[in-house]
């Protein structure tokens, strides 16, 4: 099967006072039609920058995507598209839902205006038809009284409803890929579950591929088919969700999973990862995780591992080649 999105060697650096900071470094992955890929990692690991780079939303900032990066959407390199073609991809082919719905909707425009506008930016459609489609979309994302909601202003809706509206806007042009960047972080826990469930249902119903960016492993375990773990701007492990949770290969993934409290099994002190993430301008030599890794040996400090494959998964760790080095 051919991937719908093929990201290769994606590297994005920011110009800082201390030189170039590689926020995303050599990230390669595939997204297949209809699958949900979870992109996880702690704050600042490059998850969001990866997503923004895919749609080239960092243009006009101090960020620069390296020349040999490619982001192929249906065999067309998005990074080389001209302005008009790029705009047709954004929203119509690849849509994005952001973290905080309260700031992602324009406070002075009605919900309807914002849906109609997105539709009309991508399709030749009359205002009346666009409005009808708006009602349909709001119903699809589970907003009651969708007809009246169309004339509401964002501040008249709750945070959860606003996120539903954002999802409706993102889905308005039937995108093939939905990138959801921490869509539930700004919401309270009960609403989080509803939104995640809604996203899963819609993905199924509309046959989209979804890239779900989150730092919540619970969410990923619930709905992702595959998981990509990021550390220090790089992918450190990519694996089907089940095998990743059952048997993490990369020590970082392993440590992350140990740091999550579990309902099943005995209550014990949660593990922590010693040390902290170094600044993006000062990555250690060799494997970026080795100063904090429980299994590290000399090779880890000298040689930088690439993403190595084992069966249907990949990990950026020398343990793949030398599994006997893993400490019990």
């Amino acid at each position, binding site marked *: 099967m051919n991937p719908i999105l093929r990201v290769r060697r994606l590297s994005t650096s920011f110009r800082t006072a201390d030189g170039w900071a590689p926020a995303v470094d050599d990230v390669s992955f595939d997204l297949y039609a209809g699958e949900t890929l979870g992109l996880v990692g702690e704050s600042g690991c490059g998850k969001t920058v990866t997503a923004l780079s895919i*749609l080239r*939303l960092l243009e006009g900032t101090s960020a620069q995507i390296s020349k040999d990066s490619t982001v192929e959407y249906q065999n067309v390199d998005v990074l080389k598209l001209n302005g008009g073609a790029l*705009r*047709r*991809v*954004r*929203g*119509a082919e690849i*849509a*994005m839902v*952001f973290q*905080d719905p309260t*700031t*992602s*909707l*324009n*406070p*002075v*425009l009605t919900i309807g205006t*914002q849906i109609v*506008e*997105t539709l009309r*930016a*991508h399709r030749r459609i009359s205002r009346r038809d666009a409005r009808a489609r708006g009602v349909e979309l709001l119903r699809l994302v589970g907003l009651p009284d969708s007809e009246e909601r169309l004339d509401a202003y964002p*501040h*008249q809706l709750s945070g959860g409803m606003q996120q539903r509206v*954002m999802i409706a*806007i*993102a889905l308005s042009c039937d995108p093939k890929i939905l990138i959801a960047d921490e869509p539930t972080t700004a919401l309270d826990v009960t609403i989080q579950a509803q939104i995640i469930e809604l996203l899963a249902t819609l993905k199924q119903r509309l046959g989209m591929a979804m890239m779900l960016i989150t730092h919540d492993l619970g969410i990923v375990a619930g709905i992702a088919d595959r998981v990509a773990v990021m550390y220090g701007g790089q992918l450190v492990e990519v694996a089907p969700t089940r095998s990743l949770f059952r048997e993490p290969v990369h020590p970082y993934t392993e440590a992350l999973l140990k740091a999550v409290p579990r309902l099943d099994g005995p209550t014990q002190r949660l593990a922590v990862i010693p040390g902290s993430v170094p600044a993006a301008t000062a990555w250690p030599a060799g494997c970026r995780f080795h100063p904090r890794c429980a299994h590290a040996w000399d090779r880890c400090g000298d040689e930088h591992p690439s993403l190595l494959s084992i069966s249907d998964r990949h990990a950026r760790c020398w343990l793949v080649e030398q599994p006997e080095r893993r400490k019990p």
Partner: protein
Amino acid sequence: MKTFAQRLWWHRRTRAGLLLVSILVLVAALAPLFAPYDPTEQLDLVTRQMNPPSPAHPFGTDFFSRDVFSRVLYGGRISLAIAFLAVFLSITVGTIVGWLAGIGSRVVDSVLMRTVDAALAIPRIFLLLVVLALWNDVGITALIMILGFTGWFGTSRLVRAEVLSLRERGFIHAAHALGIGKLRLFIRHLLPNLAAPVIVTATLGVGHVILIEAGLSFLGIGVRPPTPSWGSIIQEGQSLLAIAPWIAAFPGFAIVLTVVGFSLLGDGLRDTLDPRSR
């Protein structure tokens, strides 16, 4: 949830400002209805010269036996009209320039803002004095233009700063990510968000321009006699302050009331329109 009008009315000081401004605007607009005399008519130079306030002439009469009450009403008409139009002009120019600087490239921004900085370095009253002194016989239209075109610098800086911060707001990024074009973003999404600060500046600006116009007329280079404006009436009453204080006092009160009214209204609008204060 209260509506905008209800919130405005709820605020006691804003309500005072709103009432004051509405009454003044209404009275000025309907001056011919309320004024008992023609403001330029010399009624009777012998018996009605500099009469103190009386039932027949509530604000007294001036040196030329004209009814001060009628003159203040008509003068308000001129003063308010000049102020409204001049502010409209300066707000429009200021918003356009500030918007262009905010959305434009770094070069456009620098050129526009350095120009504004340079213009702001010259005191406005000095600028006005030079222009008006060089320009003989300025009509009211010209006066409005001059006041308008010297008053937009501050607004443009405010609007630019506002645009720069709006550009970084989530909803602009979100709409951009969904394929909305740049120009549409800057017009449809940005401009309406500028309404609140611009309305507030405009309201406060009206009081300010009334003061400036009064000052210019007082110096004899604004509205020329016999046309009454609050400033020019005060100027005429100035030399008679010791013997007929009412001539200058009543237009003076009118100016104070108007400026206070617009300030109260402006402050109230700022509080009501600013989402952070809700």
